[in-house]
């Protein structure tokens, strides 16, 4: 890889946009294939959506385990250049010869940072932690395990705050540089993989399901944070309203999915995700009842075993019928009305916590994509883009982690060779 002395011009084989599991995979696989890859990520940390997950289905293993291996693969390979806090501003040229303009936002912290924690200790500014969906507070200067490089992160909204000075003063290593300006970097490359991933569907749009209205209605992605050791409750699943325990919990599948008013497609993973989350609840509350309201349980391949396992669990109840309506009762419990989609019959269940299994929305639907990279009606990248840009992972279709990684691996060849589909 050729990098100019000032670092503002890079010549590489592949540019990968998005540092989640798909993007990391594409960049790493390309570099181990002997190609120079530049991986960019708009957040200050890698890992995207998966780093916010507590465990993967069906193995119930932690995403950080594979991410750790991937981080090592990146750190020990000089064919990868990672730029975080970086976004694409312009793409010109075509497959085989692109010139891409990137904007690198200021980090305000330089490589002198040793992650010693002194700045965070003295920081008096506390803000909602977006990583945990605002369920807790973090400081205006903070650390993330997947931060890349492995440095502290300064919140750009607060670096000019008078109170931030205390953080700067606490640093013994001259690691703060508040005068940093956005930087422009140009990458010359032969191929581009677009792996900007997804965001959860906005549950607030599902007005009949009470999200944002009732304290004890949460989404599947929030439950991941409640279940995680590093989450807002140190891994304890409890009622947001009072921190109370769970005796009965309801999972509402297809919350906004397979629904023409919201997401007409199926996100493919939410059934398995809820089954996995049922296991989290089962582990913490052996006596709790778990009720799952679904249209079809979709567990393809060997995931069927995972479903069978929970089906034979006497504490897990499957109700066929879409969760139609949720109302709060006096004690902040929730009443789920489910509609049998064919007979129209309604059933009601009172639970302490409702988890909405919301689907995935591709970030490409709202990102600015370079010209001639058409999307389908829902924002997924169409194959054979005239721009030659190759999508990977959920950028292409809603899929689970293994399929994303598979897709990202193949994307390397599609982006760098004439063979593509």
């Amino acid at each position, binding site marked *: 890889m050729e990098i100019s002395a000032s670092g503002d011009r890079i010549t590489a084989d592949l540019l990968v946009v998005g540092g989640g599991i798909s993007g990391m995979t594409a960049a790493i696989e390309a570099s181990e294939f002997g190609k120079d890859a530049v991986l960019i990520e708009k957040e200050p940390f890698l890992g995207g959506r998966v780093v916010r997950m*507590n465990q993967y289905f069906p193995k119930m293993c932690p995403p950080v385990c594979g991410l750790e*291996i991937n981080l090592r693969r990146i750190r020990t390979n000089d064919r990868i250049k990672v730029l975080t806090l970086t976004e694409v501003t312009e793409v010109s040229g075509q497959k085989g010869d692109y010139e891409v303009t990137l904007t690198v936002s200021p980090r305000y912290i330089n490589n002198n940072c040793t992650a010693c924690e002194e700045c965070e200790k003295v920081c008096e500014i506390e803000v909602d932690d977006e990583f945990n969906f605002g369920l807790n507070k973090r400081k205006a200067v903070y650390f993330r395990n997947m931060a890349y490089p492995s440095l502290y992160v300064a919140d750009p909204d607060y670096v000019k705050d008078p109170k931030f000075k205390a953080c700067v003063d606490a640093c013994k290593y001259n690691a703060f540089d508040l005068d940093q300006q956005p930087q422009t970097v140009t990458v010359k490359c032969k191929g581009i993989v677009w792996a900007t991933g997804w965001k959860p569907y906005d549950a607030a749009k599902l007005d009949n399901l009470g999200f944002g209205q009732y304290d004890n209605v949460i989404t599947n992605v929030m439950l991941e944070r409640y279940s995680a050791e590093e989450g807002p409750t140190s891994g304890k699943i409890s009622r947001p309203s009072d921190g109370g325990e769970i005796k009965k919990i309801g999972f509402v599948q297809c919350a906004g999915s397979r629904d023409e008013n919201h997401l*007409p497609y*199926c996100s493919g993973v939410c059934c398995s995700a809820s089954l996995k989350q049922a296991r989290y609840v089962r582990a913490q509350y052996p006596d709790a009842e778990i009720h799952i309201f679904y249209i079809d349980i979709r567990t393809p391949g060997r995931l069927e075993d995972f479903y069978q396992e929970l089906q034979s669990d006497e504490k897990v109840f499957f109700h*066929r019928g879409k969760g139609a309506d949720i109302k709060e009762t006096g004690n902040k419990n929730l009443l789920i009305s489910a509609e049998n989609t064919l007979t129209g019959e309604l059933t009601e269940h009172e639970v302490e916590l409702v988890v909405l299994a919301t689907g995935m929305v591709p970030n490409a639907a709202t990102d600015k994509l370079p010209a001639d990279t058409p999307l389908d009606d829902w924002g997924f990248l169409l194959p054979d883009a005239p721009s030659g840009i190759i999508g990977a992972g959920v950028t292409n279709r809603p899929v689970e982690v293994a399929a994303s990684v*598979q*897709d990202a691996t193949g994307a*390397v060849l599609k982006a760098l060779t004439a063979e593509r589909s």
Partner: protein
Amino acid sequence: MAVETKIGGYICSGCDIGSAVDVEALLKMAKSEGCAICKSHEALCSAEGVQMIKADIAAEELNRVVVAGCSRRIKMEEFSFGDKVITGRANIREHVAWVMEPNDEDTQMAAEDYVTMEIHRMKNTDYIEPLVQDIDKTVLVVGGGVSGLRSALAAAGAGNDAVLVEKENLLGGWATKWKKVFPKAAPYKDLADSNVGDLIKKVEANDKIKVYTGSTIKKIHGEPGKFDVTLKGSSTDTFKAGSVVLAAGWKPYDANKLDHLGYGKNNVLTNVQMEEMLNSGGLKRASDGAAPKSVAFIQCAGSRDQEHLPYCSAVCCRVSLKQAKFIRDAYPDTQVYILYKDLRSPGQYELFYKNVQEDEGVFLTKGEVIRVDQLDGDRVEIELEDTLFGENIIVQTDMLVLAAGMVPNTHVEGVAEIMGDEAETAEKPAEAADGEEEADTGASAELGAKILNLSYRKGTDLPTLKYGFPDSHYICFPYETQRTAIFAAGCVRAPMDLASAENDAYGAALKAVQATELIGAGKAVHPRAGDTSNPDFFLQRCTQCKRCTEECPFGTLDEDEKGTPETHPNRCRRCGICMGACPERIVSFKDYSVHIIGEMLKSLEIPEEEDEKPRVLAFMCENDALPSLDIAAAHRMKINPFVRIIPVRCLGSMNVVWIADALSNGYDGVILIGCKHGDDYQCHFIKGSELANTRMENVREKLKQLVLEEERVQIHELSLSEWAKIPQVLDDFIDDIDTVGPNPYKGF
């Protein structure tokens, strides 16, 4: 060792290290342990600190550097000093300063011990010479269906030669039999044509691809980069190959087993038979040659069924939707019924489902089939229970299609799981004794589907998971394989649709091409990608116990007639499990060996019994347990100061002699912390943590012989996310050691 080691010792006092330990004392100690030069700095990782080390390297001709400071997982770039200098990292930040009482006597001892151990690691670590070799980079693709065709094209597109071997006389596989394929784009309404014809043409026209039809693999001998492949059938050619894509495809589930769903009755056929019928003349009843007025589909015919295929074949719902759509378009008067358990149309295919649903001539309903009877000699009656109508439904139809599932061609009847040596008790496959000359494959050669016919001691084929799929066990690493440079693609590895299979083929091809690149450069493939170290076998001392050949999860080692291991560096993944297995300690890496770790643990001074300071060793997996300790340290959790941590490549690389050495050197106990084993194992080397557990049984026996309490040696599973448990795990261990008291061998 050509040049004598000359070590520089550098102690960082930054990040609270200086305020927690006596850095001057550490410097003095490092000097006495043999460092040629010893310096401290308040931020070794700063430009100034790094420059100081670089200047010393140049001026003093240092060839080893010990950096005592933060975890080796960070600041890697800063502390890399080129090929001529080996860097060792003593973690006195996350292992000491951040997790122990500042300025306590025990804290100081811990810091001194970590520095000492690292100095001794450096004294015994030698340069690695990468095994750069001229290899053959041809990708062998086994199977000429869509997955295989696409794999060959993708590999050729990357510049490698490819050889495609297909057992049938024609290329294309199942896809050539399909009338139409699923819609490919929005609005997901109209059926599409498959691209298999184009793929075949492209493959045949590609001069980097050599095609053999009507042929199968007689034998694959050797190792990646140097495979000798011999064919049988139409061709008996032999050629070299570097890596392999197994795209051997699938077969339909045997419908003869589905008589409970009406198979064998008049006008009952499978989805594959329906497809063939539509592709050759159209919809006709076998009984009278007339087009049926109604067609019913029973979904999950034999699938999601513990008596048949417990898994879901993932495509059958959409296949029935496709066939329904085709029938309704071509025969508008024919009524279609689709009887399902759950209708599975993932992703954008939901739109396809919606579109079919909107056709009034297609009646979709959920239920469990309880009865299928012949009616009037040629019609069929189906009864469903557990329907959404609260009562049983009866469907009468002119024709019944059983949506049967897919079985990977790697599946062998009677062998549920072929996991290397575990399958030794499994039955022999029926077709093995066909008189053909079999490959000389050693112990478990009779197992497996005999598609690849590898001449590996550990079997002829890729080991498979449950149900016979040679899939990856890892969610993060779907192309992980237990046979280096051999990758499965398409429906042989998991049930999938054509588009997914083609996509999978790209990935498998990339991995196959990548493997040849890495191996040619002498580098390991995933998960230790880029590692150039190689195990050396000092065979003069080998006792032919075969433990290494049996325990290697990757089938690296074969044996000669005497049982001496035959090494194949290109199959090796550098996990060190062979090193852990060897009772004669003859396996070693230049930077990781029984000797190096032994010297490290022996380098420490063990407190006397009357000091009342227990001392225990913790061997920790560097992939998961070690990083989790870093996270615990970042949270400033307290770690017991009596524990000394030695990272290992995998718990499976732990040689029990280290435990013996530790106990005979006066350590009071040893704890091993590694990844989960069992069905959902998380060990990155498949069997490492399991083997460590097995070896523990022998250790317990030994302890008994030495009249030592078994509590002194323990093994613990810990996943990376369980960092918060680490302090307790170590405290509990120390409590157990306190209970049994000091090691009676202390001081001998």
